[in-house]
């Protein structure tokens, strides 16, 4: 849309690579404004996001329900590839969305579950309680979110789950250095 006419592409060739430069096709959408300009698109977007917040609880309930359904499918069918992928995607979505929806502890518990799914050498050998406790914790955090004094409890619950999961993963991966490195690496996700 912003590209009225693509500019000429310049190609510089070297021994083992080419450097390709084209005039910035999006430069026309940039506009210089005065420092005093009061329009703040970020503030506008944050306000719009706050306007959506009334729906976040129901969205989280749906996400937690999807996670439980994926877990139920595994209990019924076993650790098939499709069932494991769905469990991972459901947990991964919660990991990414929960903090935005106001449930950071559910996101932390979901991250811990993702790490188990991703780094356990054999999901079938993971203690079934370890997975079930993560699912139940996420359900409880979402369900009890509106009650007072549950935020610190939720934080502590997800912290302890992560501790147990990491202990298991480090033991299970003691002969798999590439996984150990990934398990011990710090997250790059923005902090709360």
């Amino acid at each position: 849309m912003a590209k009225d006419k693509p500019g000429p592409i310049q190609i510089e060739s070297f021994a083992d690579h080419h450097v390709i430069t084209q005039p910035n096709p999006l430069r026309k959408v940039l506009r210089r404004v005065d420092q005093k300009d009061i329009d703040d698109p970020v503030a506008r977007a944050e306000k719009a996001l706050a306007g959506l917040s009334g729906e976040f609880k129901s969205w989280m309930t749906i996400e937690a329900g999807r996670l439980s359904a994926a877990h139920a499918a595994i209990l019924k069918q076993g650790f098939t590839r499709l069932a494991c992928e769905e469990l991972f995607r459901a947990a991964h979505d919660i990991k990414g969305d929960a903090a935005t929806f106001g449930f950071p502890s559910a996101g932390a518990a979901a991250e811990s579950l993702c790490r188990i799914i991703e780094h356990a050498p054999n999901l079938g050998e993971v203690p079934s309680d370890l997975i079930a406790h993560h699912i139940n914790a996420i359900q409880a955090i979402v369900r009890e979110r509106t009650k007072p004094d549950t935020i610190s409890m939720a934080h502590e619950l997800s912290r302890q789950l992560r501790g147990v999961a990491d202990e298991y993963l480090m033991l299970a991966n003691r002969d798999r250095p590439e996984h150990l490195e990934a398990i011990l690496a710090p997250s790059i996700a923005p902090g709360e």
Partner: protein
Amino acid sequence: MFRIDFNKLRFLVCDDNPHMRRILRTLLHSFGAREVYESEDGATALEMYSHYVPDIVITDWSMPIFDGLELAQMIRQPESKGNPFAPIIMLTGHSEKRRVTVARDAGVTEFLAKPISAKGLYQRILNVVANPRPFIRTKTYFGPDRRRNTGNTYSGPERRVGGEVEILQQPSLLDKARTPV
């Protein structure tokens, strides 16, 4: 100080999660964007990419069948009839360093780890609009220049040969992904 005329930009958003698509749509419309096309999987996104020719692609990584990484790789085909140069912002719950490297090597322009924020998304869009990087084509890579480090002492097997090194004064993709915004 610069502002973006979002109403002149066309976005393609690809995420299998309807709630995240709603969040993204809300943010982009609030920034001023009018044209936001949405897809819930990579295959549909690729079709929409050819049809609507978006200026900027924002994609999730983890999706069923055809994920965001594959979408980036398909867009970055130098011989394709479509535009292989469009900025791609990977918005993902993956938050490990190695994922940033894999995304970078697939031709992703910017990496934004969830949880999403209005500021983080705006800054990534501003960067791809205001500071486009040259593209590099090698035997194994086609995409935005992956060099953002100021040091020029690297002498490993992936060192490019045959020319002066152009140093781009930008923070690395990993450092940017770590920025708490």
